[in-house]
């Protein structure tokens, strides 16, 4: 009986203590000590992630090379498309896809919390750059002109990226070939869903999907013409208001170790 009392009192003590810490953290009073702790603990987590990433890359080196070549080809196609549009629109200089190197910040991935190798793909990344490096919530994260995701949380030293395949991600997009506009949403797996495409718009399998751009006046948001992936299926039913499709990214998120944050 006595043992039960001790047991309950210890539970109550730590329950209340945890509740206080949780409340303070939610109110933002613990962001500084949390940042310091993250700075201290992240090298360990980063080393573990790098080790797993290294073994993963070793197993997929041939596939990795092909993926790199594929990305390079897609980039060429996109650049060609952008050039054509530029010529036809003359002074439309903002249609280019390349991002100025001054606005890019290299960030190392130190964690992929929602990731089980071989079971489920990553849905978010933790990177080693935070508000101290001028990273802000809403900034786009890219890898070779391919959109990786968006910053959703940031503190002094670290930031969390929600990947484009994460269910929390959605954005307005367009197709490279016909400029058809739609909305893309992460599906939780490797795929994304393209929705809200008008029935009159022309979309077909293998169409490349680009961001339409939703930056605000401070430059926060997704810049236009970043590659999201390609259409692998199209669902067009006359009874539906919109066309739907499935999109896969050109990136293998499980093999990424470095990404670039676009900041202004």
């Amino acid at each position, binding site marked *: 009986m006595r043992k*039960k009392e*001790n*047991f309950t009192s*210890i*539970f109550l*003590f*730590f*329950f209340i*203590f*945890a*509740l*206080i*810490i*949780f*409340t*303070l*953290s*939610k109110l933002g009073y*613990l962001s500084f000590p*949390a940042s310091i*702790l*993250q700075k201290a*603990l*992240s090298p*360990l*987590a*980063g080393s*573990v*992630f790098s080790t*797993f990433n290294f073994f993963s890359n070793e197993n997929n080196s041939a596939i990795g090379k092909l993926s790199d070549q594929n990305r390079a080809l897609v980039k060429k196609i996109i650049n060609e498309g952008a050039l054509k549009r530029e010529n036809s629109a003359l002074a439309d200089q903002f249609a280019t896809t390349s991002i100025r190197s001054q606005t890019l910040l290299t960030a190392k991935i*130190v*964690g*992929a*919390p*929602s*990731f*089980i*190798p071989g*079971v*489920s793909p990553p*849905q*978010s990344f*933790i990177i080693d750059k935070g508000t101290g490096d001028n990273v802000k919530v809403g900034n786009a994260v890219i890898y070779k002109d391919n959109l990786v995701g968006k910053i959703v*949380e940031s*503190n002094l030293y*670290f*930031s*969390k990226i*929600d990947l484009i395949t*994460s*269910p*929390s991600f959605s954005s307005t997009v367009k197709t490279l070939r016909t400029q058809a506009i739609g909305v893309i949403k992460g599906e*939780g*797996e490797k795929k994304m869903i393209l929705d809200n495409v008008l029935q009159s718009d022309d979309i077909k399998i293998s169409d490349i999907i680009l961001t339409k751009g939703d930056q605000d006046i401070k430059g926060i948001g997704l810049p236009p013409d970043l590659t999201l992936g390609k259409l692998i299926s199209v669902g067009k039913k006359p009874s539906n208001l919109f066309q739907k499709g499935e999109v896969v990214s050109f990136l293998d998120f499980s093999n990424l170790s470095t990404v670039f944050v676009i900041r202004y």
Partner: protein
Amino acid sequence: MWLIVILILISTLLQASVTTLPLIILFFLNVAVVAKKTWIFPASFLTGLALDVLLLNPMGKTSLFLVIFLFIILLYDKKFDIQTFPFVFLASFIGSLIYFITMGHIPNIFTQAIISAVISTLSFFLLVTFNKIHIKERIGFNEG
């Protein structure tokens, strides 16, 4: 005791960097079932804080979950025998499922909860096997 600390460290780092499986919950569930000691509350509290810091969660979120989860597990011990495989399987399955729902935006939660339950049951099996060589006494579980 060092064995416990090393295992906590490894589980925390793995959960923070390469997997979404709730290794820490599975670990503390096994320790609670085998040891039934009150020191698991401060240990789980501190581990939860470290995990929250590494995962950029609000601090105290995982600690709260762990403390409540372990309290419920130990409450069951008053009524039932918790050192059984079905209990460990069910407790880890339900615990993992609630953890995934609490954390949000984790895919395939049902599959992952089943994987967690299998891992937990296997590790419990190993603990039971090890106990034949008195691992409880060696890591100081049977004090008091």
